[in-house]
């Protein structure tokens, strides 16, 4: 290790970055003392990943400067970042699965056209690194045979081999078991002891408190606070993270919940990697209520919506809906769920809710394209589709009210209105609605919220998923919180406040029912 000549291993001044109309980073200052573990926390979309991408050269900042060990540097791409000693471990690993650990590590640093020499030298160096930091990994193992925890260590090894003195880890524990996570933190500790500076990006408060020296909090693109970890606690961090937001106002009466329309029992789901994304989720959804699901995104909400709506099959569990029992052995697909009068506004309208290449009137029947209203014996009834689209565009104030305009050319709010109108106008019994107002302007938000409440007052059941805490609190009659694929708590909306929900979302709340600590 080169002797440190400057107190700050990395120092950012006035970093700003804008994507279109979104200011992802606003005038960010950050000082990371050499040889420390520095945590950066914030909600989804707070700008953490953007900031790290700027440091690692994926994006160039619009303004501001980066200094490494007191030297002003210019980082235009990841090669530049590696040159000044920055290494990054991404949330999704960048490994060649059928290469050995050794081959992966020297990838891009082979040292000449003939592999043998470089490989031998690398093997020596890796052995040394591996022992020095007790990484405990077989350099000849094939990466795809290794569990995720070890694959992550290969990423760390890769960064160290390239001479990283600053190591950035983006949500490193997202894919790890608790034991693997503990091992990771021991490794980070030994890295720190050897003088490596570690930057840890996470939204898990427990990890920040357990492993970091300092912590910085980001909110809506801004750096809102810097704390020494020993001088802060969960409550303060949760509050800083969520902030005191202006309460959204939604005019609604007390809910009058009636009979249960849908009940989910112990739903489980595993993704293609075999990771358990839903862990025995159970809840009841009653007619005339809005059930909000709060949680930092990526904690199983999307999977829950997909399983309920029939898009992905469940691994185990049971759904009772419309007199039917749906299980893994007796599944129903998305079309069948629709026939039972379940409507679904997906979280991502571009990826799922719309076909952006379609004209508006075509996108406005997606999922209901088999309906008799739109079909003659052979051909589709174009005129009927157009008439209906015109009517809905008028009723929902979609602008411009042109059913022939390509869906991609509408603004986000108007696209969302097209989707919500399509689902709500089918008069469903249950509406699943994910991120109803993501990327939607203020005026449209109000309109969308009103429509949701109206549907509730008509005696329908609504399951609302949102990462916007204030939206959840404004709309819901009852709130359940998801963390790591499981339901970790339930509160009545009248008793919910930001602090409690924030702590539950970070899985750091330890009073009350069903909470894992």
């Amino acid at each position, binding site marked *: 290790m080169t002797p440190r000549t400057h107190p700050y291993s990395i120092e950012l001044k006035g970093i700003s970055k804008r994507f279109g109309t979104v200011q992802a980073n606003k005038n960010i200052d950050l000082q990371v003392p050499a040889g420390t573990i520095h945590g950066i926390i914030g909600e989804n979309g707070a700008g953490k990943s953007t900031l790290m991408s700027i440091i690692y050269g994926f994006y160039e900042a619009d303004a501001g400067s980066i200094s490494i060990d007191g030297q002003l540097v210019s980082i235009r791409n990841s090669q530049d970042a590696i040159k000044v000693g920055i290494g990054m471990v991404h949330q999704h690993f960048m490994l060649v699965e059928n290469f050995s650990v050794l081959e992966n590590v020297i990838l891009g640093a082979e040292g000449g056209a003939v592999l043998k020499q470089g490989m031998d030298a690398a093997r020596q160096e890796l052995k040394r690194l591996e022992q020095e930091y007790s990484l405990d990994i077989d350099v000849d193992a094939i990466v795809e045979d290794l569990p995720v925890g070890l694959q992550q260590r290969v990423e760390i090894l890769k960064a160290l081999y390239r001479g990283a003195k600053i190591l950035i880890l983006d949500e490193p524990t997202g894919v790890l078991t608790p034991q693997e996570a503990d091992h990771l933190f021991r490794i980070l500790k030994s890295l720190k002891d050897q003088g490596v500076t570690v930057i840890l990006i996470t939204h898990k408060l427990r990890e920040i408190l357990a492993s970091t020296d300092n912590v910085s909090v980001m909110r809506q693109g801004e750096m809102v606070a810097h704390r020494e970890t020993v001088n802060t606690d969960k409550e303060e961090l949760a509050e800083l993270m969520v902030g005191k937001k202006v309460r959204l106002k939604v005019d609604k009466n007390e809910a009058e919940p009636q009979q249960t329309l849908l009940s989910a029992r112990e739903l489980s789901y595993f993704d293609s990697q075999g990771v358990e994304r839903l862990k025995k989720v159970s809840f009841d959804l009653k007619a005339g209520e809005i059930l909000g699901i709060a949680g930092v995104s990526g904690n199983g909400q999307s999977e829950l919506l997909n399983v309920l709506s029939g898009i992905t099959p469940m691994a185990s569990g049971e759904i009772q809906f419309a007199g039917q029992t749906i299980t893994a052995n007796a599944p129903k*697909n998305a079309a069948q769920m629709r026939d039972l009068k379940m409507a679904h506004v997906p979280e991502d309208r571009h*990826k799922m809710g*719309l076909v*952006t290449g*379609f004209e508006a009137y075509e996108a406005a029947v997606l*999922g209901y*394209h088999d309906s008799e209203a739109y079909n003659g014996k052979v051909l589709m009834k174009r005129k009927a589709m157009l008439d209906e689209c015109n009517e809905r565009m008028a009723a929902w104030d979609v602008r411009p009210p042109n059913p022939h305009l390509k869906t991609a*050319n509408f*603004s986000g709010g108007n696209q969302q209105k097209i989707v919500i109108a399509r689902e709500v106008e089918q008069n469903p019994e249950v509406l699943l609605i994910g991120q109803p107002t993501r990327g939607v302007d203020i005026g449209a938000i109000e309109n969308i919220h009103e429509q949701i409440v109206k549907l509730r007052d008509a005696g329908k059941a609504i399951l609302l998923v949102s990462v916007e805490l204030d939206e959840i609190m404004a709309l819901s009659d009852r709130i359940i919180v998801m963390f790591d694929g499981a339901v970790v708590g339930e509160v009545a909306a009248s008793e919910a406040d930001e602090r409690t929900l924030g702590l539950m979302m970070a899985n750091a709340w330890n009073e009350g029912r069903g909470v894992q600590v």
Partner: protein
Amino acid sequence: MSQAKVPAWVSVGLIPLMNILLAFFVSGLVFLAIGEDPIEAAGYLIYGAFGYDEGIGYTLYYATNLIFTGLAVSIAFKAGLFNIGGEGQAYIGGLGVGLLCLWFDSSLPLLVIAPLAIIGGALFGAAWAYIPAYLQARRGSHIVITTIMFNFIASSLMVYLMVNWLKEEGVMSPISRTFEESAWLPYMHDVFAPFGLDIGDSPLNLAFVLALFCCVFYWALVWHTRWGYQLRTVGTNPTAAQYAGIDNAKVTIWVMLISGGFAGLVGVNEIMGVNHNLLLNFTAGYGFAGIAVALMGRNHPIGIILAAILFGALYQGGAELAFEIPTITPEIVVVIQGLVILFSGALENMFKGKIEGLFLRRAVA
């Protein structure tokens, strides 16, 4: 999001035209390099393709095959599938047509044989596309690889069948007996003759009408039926298709069946319309040329007809050119075709950004 749009005539008219002109310009350089006058050569080519009745007939006869294979490639592409197997599907489709003609030519009238052979050709082509389709939809084997391999299998299968089973006895070459005239699809010049119209003798036959009918069928199917709606959803956004409860695998299999069916109809033109017997290698690369036709035609039936006629003209005019100027060999003609494919297919986006940028800037200003 930008609401400005490039006018339609730019993207479907101007840009393809620029690409073709560039291809002809480079072809001109090739002619100069071998010491021939490009203007004179272009004259022969255009005259050969469009200058007289027989030439036009030949151009449209070639175009017929290219419309079938172009539609085949294009409809698969609507589902995001790249069907490279048009050649093999056309080959097997021709086998189906030929077998039906051989079985029924002496017992049934043309009015019965023709629909039978058309359905048979489409079914055989579809059946040949079914296996790669099944493997793609249910097993995840890549359709590009399997359809290419099925071209070779089709080719070997035909050689085996022709040599061992279908060859006429006592003949040295692998061709079947000639069908009775009741299994000949009428030539266009025979169709027009009773009306006193002389359009010159050419292989152009009623299969051309079938090809145009297929274009209408394609248009109605893709844009005006619910199956077409599903097809386009699967092709542009498979996740949204899943969300909508569309069975992607089922759509994949069906679209490949239709694609193979279109390709199989090449057999109607070649076997029933022109050769009147079963033989080897009648597909002559139409399956592959169909890829270029679909690309140039922007996956729209009107575009496919125009592109097919352009390529038909290159086939026919090129043959004329090679005949008129001895130093221009058929291989040079293939070079021209290659250049057109290169510039309008592979390099189709070369001008796109710049020209569209030009129009968008003007629209903003």
